[in-house]
């Protein structure tokens, strides 16, 4: 029975399956449009943000982690000192997700009833900083200190063998907070995954207040007022960042092969990784004439596809569904938004292309280190 569950979880956690599931379920949990909202309610997912729902989520995570801790293989990974922050991260992210969403739902209900939001005490209802705020701050600091001390006493900081440049550990992992990036590196070249994407994340985050022109829901929790922006943010934060960190930490073993959490990390495991470039599909598989020697000719299909990917949808959407957005934001800000969104979507798209047709690069010009 237990083995069956573990085997099931192993299969479930394959990125192909788990990622697909998350993408599929996500809009139902955080419904970006009214259509999803309808199903959200119908499926009873709004109950997640009640006290009971929260308890269930807590119990679910705890059960899986307990299952893990007592498992020979998963236990080893969970027990690694540097992975402890991720467990804390998982708990805290889920807790605060639940906390914020339940606050938002309560506020939404209040607003629907025409009441003031919970945070709104009116402009005159003020309290003295001394002692209330100063006091809770002090208590928080003390508790944090206690937490840190207990953590430090209980868990020695890791110190592996002395540096040896000629012996890469297998697997060699970045610090946990960069494992999302490292996971992207499986699908994209370093210049994209290591340089362009992080830059875009920073730029995108910084641009957020300038492109989110929704004046509502400032200073209080609310979901109904800003569904789309919360959906996009949480999709990026939870799916493309936290989830990829979890995958990178728990599911990537020797030779950077995928391993189910309960699977043994065997160095011998072989996974077929014969990846094929788009140009090879076109020139070799379909046309059977071998690769042209000039890189630009060789990659012409890929180049056209990338140009179209970033060129067509903005234009089409601007004329269609997002006409309103263009009018509100103006061309520049609209272009930025759509470019960032397309870049964000490029990650899952490339992941799927890799999983389905073993696609390595859409454009492959290794001569000038330009691979997409």
């Amino acid at each position, binding site marked *: 029975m237990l083995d069956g569950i573990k085997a099931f979880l192993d299969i479930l956690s394959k990125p192909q399956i788990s990622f697909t599931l998350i993408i599929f379920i996500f809009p139902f949990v955080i419904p970006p449009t009214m259509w999803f909202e309808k199903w959200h309610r119908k499926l009873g997912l709004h109950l997640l943000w009640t006290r009971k729902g929260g308890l269930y989520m807590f119990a679910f995570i705890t059960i899986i982690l307990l299952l893990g801790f007592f498992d020979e293989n998963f236990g080893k990974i969970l027990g690694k000192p540097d992975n402890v922050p991720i467990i804390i991260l998982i708990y805290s992210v889920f807790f605060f997700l639940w906390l914020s969403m339940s606050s938002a739902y309560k506020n939404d209900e209040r607003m629907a009833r025409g009441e003031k939001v919970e945070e709104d005490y009116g402009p005159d209802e003020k309290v003295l900083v001394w002692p209330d705020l100063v006091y809770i701050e002090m208590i928080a600091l003390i508790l944090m200190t206690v937490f840190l001390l207990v953590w430090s006493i209980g868990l020695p900081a890791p110190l592996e063998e002395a540096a040896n440049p000629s012996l890469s550990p297998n697997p060699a992992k970045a610090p946990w907070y*960069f494992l999302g990036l490292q996971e992207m590196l499986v699908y994209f070249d370093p210049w994209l995954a290591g340089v362009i994407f992080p830059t875009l994340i920073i730029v995108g985050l910084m641009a957020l207040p300038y492109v989110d022109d929704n004046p509502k829901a400032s200073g209080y929790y609310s979901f109904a007022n800003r569904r789309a922006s919360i959906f996009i943010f949480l999709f990026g934060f939870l799916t493309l960042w936290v989830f990829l960190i979890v995958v990178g930490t728990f599911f990537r073993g020797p030779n950077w092969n995928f391993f189910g959490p309960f699977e043994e990390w065997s160095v011998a495991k072989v996974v077929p990784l014969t990846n094929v470039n788009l140009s090879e599909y076109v020139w070799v598989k379909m046309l059977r004439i071998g690769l042209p020697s000039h890189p630009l000719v060789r990659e012409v299909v890929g180049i056209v596809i990338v140009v179209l990917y970033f060129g067509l949808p903005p234009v089409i959407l601007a004329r269609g569904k997002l006409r309103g957005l263009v009018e509100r934001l103006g061309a520049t800000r609209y272009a930025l938004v759509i470019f960032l969104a397309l870049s964000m979507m490029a990650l899952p798209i490339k992941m799927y292309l890799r999983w389905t047709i073993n696609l390595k690069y859409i454009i492959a010009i290794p001569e000038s280190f330009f691979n997409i």
Partner: protein
Amino acid sequence: MADKKKTGLLASIGDSQIWKSIFRTGVPVTRRQRMMGVLNSVFLHLHPVRLPKHAVKLKYTWCMGGLSFFLFLVLTISGILLMFYYRPTVEYAYTDIMDLSEQVPLGIMREIHRWGAHAMVIAVWLHMFRVFMTGSYKPPREFNWAVGVIMLFLTLLLSFTGYLLPWDQLAIWAITVGANMARATPFLGHEGPGASLLAIGDINLVSMTSDIRFALLGGRFVGEGALLRFYVLHCVGLPFIIAILMAVHFWRVRKDGGISTPV
């Protein structure tokens, strides 16, 4: 202040010249004293004297910003202490770290520093999460959000630069992988797109010893130069920048109207 008759030890302390010379106000008992207490303290006057009621609620603030700042202070203090025992050279770095757990009194400082750093990363993320969920980045706080994003990035960099210092396998391979991403920076990295365009005749201008990765590592590989550069960045460079930005951040919190409030 002394208009009311006060009795007891607390009151006499509050009335003493020493107390007053330091705090200017008596023991904060009255409303006025409490307000003045906040106003007159160089540390506390980061806060306003009075706050909207929801702003003291943990459910609203999660206290993550404050904790991030607190963790920064913890890391600064523990980091300074660690510097007494740590020598950033390839000969000694690893063994010095080893000694922290083997012989240095209160060697637990290293654990506090390391786990505190992890906690700070999480706290900063959650702070961002909260600010997003309450829509607090919206005008007039756009700029402060941007400052916050930069500080988030700097927090990760601080943690990343610190990661190398124990000079163990974990450290050099994480940094090797990380630094090699810089190698792929367009135009500036010697294996980035466009770098090969920066050549005149047979002479490549961007090479292994002249690209951005070299500037970061101070060498062709993660070695002595990298250790020293990361040490300096970790202990001086990045904290210096982040401290300035923190000042801006806190200042702007107050100037942008304090904590976000429903409008």
